[in-house]
């Protein structure tokens, strides 16, 4: 009997809101790790923003001790995974650290798009998958139907799937037994050269970068010198241990185990998720498969608002990057907004989280410009440019072709919304690949859509048109040529580069008009008339005007109540602070993002 027999490494995969985190809480509670009193709801989600949105972004790992019915003690390593489409790579790497996975399906919702996505990821890693049906306490639970769905759609035998309610605790004991029985013990040779996977890392101000690792072969101790094979760098290990989830140092980590490593690494991007760790002086043959460089999909400009120091923004971005390997940034100069940064994100959610953290945690007053994708521009002269900032798009006559990123979008929906979804995708220049009726009531639509049609509000519109029932998963497929132009916005006859966007030529007039119209609502009246214009290649294609203010006077000072008057004036002054001045025109900071929330018939 080997120590390996009493280890189980697994993850919980599920669609958003199907109860993954609550289930994790229950497991932690049941195995006596954390007192029920101390039970901090959704223990594994540890950032405020995550808590607010009820989603997991950052990973955490928990080591649970479980005494099974057979009387033996088992170590259950629960590896948490992010629950959003933006973070697929991170999900796949944390799954790679596991030997099995619990597939949690909501008994009232059934199998959904992201469930499928993660299941395929788990299957790619050849994990043993144990379906678990959750929320059976609810009246609308249909466990038998869901079991059939799982069998039909995923091809997993769900007959004996444990039925649980993470909320009430029902069925959890049985589920624990099943984890021990159904999920295989890890294999591995503790005497072979070290081969370990980095499946997450974060920066701790005292310990530097902390790596979460799964050891496949070999063993590791403090003092060893490790090599990160893809990064090609060596580090001396200062500490190893287990995450319970607090850090518990130990003598060594062995094959089959999950734990953490500290090695004086300064930045998380130096310890990239997916990299293989081995010993410098006794290297393993091949690195583990599945490693990928970080790839940003969505970009936006982040600029200090008036009165905010550039250094503060720089400082905050650097600190964020220390703990977020997927976030990158580069200095950028905007004619309109001054010096700032162009930042790359995995997706829109990632972008939202970062910008919110900047505003909240770092207390920064920033202006965020419109999110955009990277365009591939082939010039007549032969070179290829990658344009992240629309205002950098070269003149049209010098361009041979503009290519935009295309994604494959997988949409799951009840049948009755198929029509509205098809019209939405069509409107967003999508091409249908196929449509499958998975069950009588669940349809899967596969579309190829340009990414720039997806990043703004596609998800929100999809949700609102389908009363929240539709789900979306997407991934990049290729670059494709399109007839695109740069739409410029002029205020008071000056191009404000921060508003420039790249749009399909056929939409330029429509978008131009819509943006001018929106700006007219947002931009306050000034002492003079403010013309708002949209232009393509210098040619004006749309125009609105904000008329000058005519009246702003207090006729009567109510019987000597001067304070009231003063408050009115102070309010006016406060209003100005929310503005950014461009030449003579004051623009509210929200204009940059508001402008794109065009009211398409939602």
């Amino acid at each position: 009997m080997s120590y390996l027999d009493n280890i189980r490494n697994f993850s919980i995969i599920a669609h958003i809101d199907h109860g993954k985190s609550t289930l994790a809480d229950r497991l932690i509670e049941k195995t006596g790790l954390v007192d029920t009193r101390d039970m901090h709801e959704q223990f594994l989600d540890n950032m405020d923003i995550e808590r607010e949105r009820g989603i997991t972004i950052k990973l955490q790992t928990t080591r649970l001790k479980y005494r099974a019915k057979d009387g033996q003690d088992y170590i259950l390593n629960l590896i948490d995974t992010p629950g959003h489409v933006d973070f697929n790579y991170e999900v796949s790497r944390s799954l790679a650290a596991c030997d099995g996975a619990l597939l949690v399906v909501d008994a009232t919702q059934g199998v959904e798009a992201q469930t499928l996505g993660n299941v395929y990821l788990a299957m790619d890693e050849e994990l043993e998958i144990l379906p678990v049906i959750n929320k059976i306490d609810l009246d609308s639970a249909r466990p038998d139907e869901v079991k059939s769905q799982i069998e039909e759609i995923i091809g997993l035998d769900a007959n004996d799937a444990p039925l649980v309610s993470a909320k009430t605790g029902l069925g959890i004991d049985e589920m624990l037994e099943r984890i021990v029985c159904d999920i295989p013990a890890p294999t591995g040779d503790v005497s072979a050269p070290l081969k370990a996977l980095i499946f997450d890392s974060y920066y701790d101000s005292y310990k530097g970068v902390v790596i979460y690792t799964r050891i496949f072969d070999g063993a590791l101790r403090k003092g060893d010198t490790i090599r990160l094979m893809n990064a090609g760098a060596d580090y001396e290990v200062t500490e190893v241990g287990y995450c319970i989830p607090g850090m518990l140092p130990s003598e060594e980590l062995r094959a089959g185990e999950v734990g953490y490593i500290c090695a004086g690494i300064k930045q998380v991007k130096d310890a990239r998720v997916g990299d293989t760790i081995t010993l410098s002086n006794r290297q393993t043959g091949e690195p583990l498969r599945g490693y990928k460089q970080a790839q940003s999909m969505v970009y936006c400009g982040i600029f200090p608002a008036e009165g905010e120091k550039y250094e503060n923004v720089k400082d905050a971005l650097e600190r964020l990057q220390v703990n977020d390997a997927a976030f990158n940034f580069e200095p950028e100069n905007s004619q309109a907004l001054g010096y700032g940064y162009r930042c790359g994100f995995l997706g829109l959610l990632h972008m939202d989280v970062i910008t919110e953290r900047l505003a909240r945690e770092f207390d920064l007053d920033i202006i965020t410009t419109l999110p955009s994708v990277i365009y591939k521009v082939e010039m007549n002269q032969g070179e290829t440019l990658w344009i992240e900032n629309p205002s950098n798009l070269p003149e049209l006559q010098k361009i041979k072709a503009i290519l935009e990123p295309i994604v494959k979008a997988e949409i799951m929906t009840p049948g009755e919304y198929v029509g509205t979804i098809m019209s939405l995708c069509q409107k967003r220049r999508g091409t249908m690949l196929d449509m499958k009726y998975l069950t009588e009531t669940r349809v899967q639509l596969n579309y190829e859509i340009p990414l720039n049609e997806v990043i703004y509000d596609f998800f929100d519109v999809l949700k609102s048109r389908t009363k929240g029932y539709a789900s979306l998963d997407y991934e990049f497929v290729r670059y494709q040529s399109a007839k695109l132009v740069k739409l410029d916005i002029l205020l008071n006859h000056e191009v404000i580069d921060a508003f420039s966007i790249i749009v399909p030529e056929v939409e330029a007039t429509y978008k131009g008009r819509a943006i001018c119209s929106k700006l007219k609502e947002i931009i306050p009246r000034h002492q003079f008339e403010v013309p708002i214009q949209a232009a393509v290649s210098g040619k004006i294609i749309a125009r609105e005007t904000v008329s000058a203010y005519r009246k702003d006077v207090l006729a009567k000072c109510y019987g000597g109540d001067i304070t009231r008057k003063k408050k009115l004036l102070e309010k006016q002054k406060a209003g100005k602070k929310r503005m950014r001045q461009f030449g003579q025109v004051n623009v509210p900071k929200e204009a940059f993002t508001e402008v794109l929330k065009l009211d398409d018939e939602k």
Partner: protein
Amino acid sequence: MMKNNITTNPGIYIHVPYCQSKCNYCSFYSQPISGRAELEQYVDKMIEEIECWRIRVEGVPPRIFDTVYFGGGTPSILSPVSLQRILDKIHSSFNITEDAEITLEVNPWSISSKTGGENYLALIREMGFNRLSIGVQSFDDRTLSFLGRIHSAADAYRTIEAARAASFDNISLDLIYSIPYYRDGFDPMQAALSDIEEAIRIAPRHLSVYSLQIEPGTKMSRLTEMGLKPVSDELDREIHHNITSRLVEASFQHYEISSYALKSDDKDYRSRHNYKYWNMSEYLGIGDGASGFFSMERYTNPPLAERNPLAPEDFLSESIFLALRTSDGYRFTDEFTYENFQDIYQDQMPHFKSFVSSGHLILNKQYIKLSETGIDISNKIMALLV
């Protein structure tokens, strides 16, 4: 050489927040009258309040008051006896100048024959009131009805006659313009000019002419929500300018945003009391909801209860933006020069300069003041000062 009526002595404001009925546009604090007893109790309360102020005002620096102003609500619902009580208490509590301006706001309804008040004005003249501010609002009965006023144009004429008969020389009329389109064929400009013509014909010494503000929570605001069309900003300003031109033509001085005083060789008919609001003079506020400015602190009585001490920078900025309401504007002195101004407001100077270029503001070594067009957007300029 005209005698200057404006001083920096402190004044006294007495607030009577009771009305027979609420006008449709009124957002001021006022209560319905439940009976004479309630009014008497209120007067008692004010007498007590005056006593408290007597004690507070005593000592240094000595304060010599030169105005007493009864506003409201409807101060003219108080009986002559009540008014006498209050005036007596004031005279015995404070140092009041001989030529103090003592004003009563009058609702023409109080004086109408229905309530038999023609003697009223004679009685109060005798007790020392020397100025009346009559709430005419309009000489058109239809408009008065629309505004929810309880008097008629005839009542207004009667009141003015009675005032003159009672030897009141210093009479002021209140008028409202920019009335919404409340009936077919109503022309707000016409209506305003017509009222102004009538006012000129009557020849009071002073006119307070206000643009109708549609305040939230008033009946007027509910009517506009239901479709009543208000006067546009552009038209409102045009009306204001036309009114001003006509009154200037008729020898009135446009000395404050909404105030016009008849020019005279020997008397200054500007409102001495109201001017205290604009030149940072002190004034006691007495009565429920009354506002005052005393010992560097602005306060408002309960139920609106507030106290706001002024820091030096507050005092400065208020001095300027309040003075901007007047045609004299704010004059720079040796203590506070134009250079001092440029220094303190250096961030805002480009904006001030822009308003000067556009003709809204006059700014030089002597003073800062609004032009006639500057009045229209005065809040924008004043906001630069706070």
